[in-house]
């Protein structure tokens, strides 16, 4: 068993999440809060919301990472102890959404990952949860998928937009 697999096994019963808004329209943030309400009762899986990235096992990242928020996002992710697990939430968190090529945003987690690598911040695992806004059930499923508690249902399909 690799070191990451061992670390993920240890986290599986106690998952502390940190909510990181990087310029979202707040729709995904409302759904994150919804997932944490007694209705969905994520505490039964050991999920707990924490107020400091130092305590976090998983970062719930929403928004297209605006230029203004970028340094803060990098600092928050750097502050997190290893293993660093990220759940990129919503269309904006996954690929920038309708702001994917805007001058004022980074354009989703994929580009942020490159910036983090340039700054020497390693990410151990990422799961993308699309949706506009993302559904609370999908967030819970994404967390469990991130930790390997459930199997991925869909296969990866890459789609490219044509310029013409």
């Amino acid at each position, binding site marked *: 068993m690799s070191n990451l697999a*061992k*670390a993920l096994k*240890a*986290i599986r*019963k*106690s998952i*502390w999440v940190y909510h990181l808004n990087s310029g979202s329209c707040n729709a995904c943030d409302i759904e994150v809060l919804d997932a944490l309400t*007694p209705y969905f*009762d994520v*505490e*039964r899986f*050991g999920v*707990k919301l*924490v*107020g*400091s990235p*130092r*305590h976090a*096992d998983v970062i719930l990242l929403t928004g297209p990472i605006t230029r203004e928020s970028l340094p803060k996002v990098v600092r928050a992710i750097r*502050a997190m*102890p*290893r*293993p660093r697990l990220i759940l990129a939430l919503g269309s904006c968190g996954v690929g920038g959404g309708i702001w994917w090529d805007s001058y004022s945003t980074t354009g989703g987690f994929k580009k942020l990952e490159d910036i983090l690598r340039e700054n020497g911040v390693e990410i151990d695992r990422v799961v993308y949860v699309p949706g506009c806004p993302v559904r609370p059930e999908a967030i819970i499923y994404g967390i469990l998928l991130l930790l390997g508690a459930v199997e991925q249902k869909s296969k990866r399909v890459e789609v490219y937009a044509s310029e013409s």
Partner: protein
Amino acid sequence: MFHSVVAALVSLVLAPIYDGIERKMRAAVHSRIGPPILQTWYDIIKLFTKEIVVPLGGTWCALATVLELIVLASSAVLLMFVAGIGLSPEGIFWVIVFTVLVSAASSLTILRSVSQNNVYSVVGGFREFSLVLSAEPFLIMSLFLLASGAGSQISRAVAVATAIVASYVVSGRVPYDIAEAEPELSAGVNIELSGPLLGLATVSTVFKKFVSASLTSLVLVSLAGLSGWSSLAATFLLTPATWIAQLILSVMLGRSRVDLAVKFLYTLLFTLSILTLLSYGLGL
């Protein structure tokens, strides 16, 4: 002595399970399933497997965290030792040592918070300081009165009430969790801790709750006039019930404004202490 140490060690292993039961009951109040009873143990074990990110001022912070845990565990053992004697003049020396240890644990929490280079942590430290000043002198006074065996039934009853309120504050439950204050200070005194260091702080928090529940149990047992073996057994068995009672009280109380929580506490404990001294002085 041996029995007291065994009772304390068993209790300290059980304390995270009591905390798990508390979380389960809190979930039941919200009409939800809630975490497993062993959840607090899972959290602690997980934290010890994580990477440690040493905060600025890390040496003092780590030292204070470790010392706080040792002091709290020692105070739990000492409390069971006092329970084995009973709150009586024979055990008054140990009661004094116990109060010194509880105050030392609070001082170490303050040292831990101010040694971290973080504004939220320092604010949390000052809040802890205000709580210590508001509650612990009254706790020491009431315990000393109860252990000395002086005073009438009325003055002892008021001293018991003072000790129960002050020990609730020591437990760090709502609304006296202002030093951590998850929603507004982002974990306050714990904000910069991570991995095993946060694990030690979490264990300290659970031990603090245990010391508070045991102390309340001991004070109640002393009202019944028990001593020796029966006092130790009654304190040990009453502790989980007291823990649950404190949980129910915390759910009923809810959050309060920071300044109002401390002001109300100080007014209440000051009034109770004056009543104790008056009834003692007048021989009521």
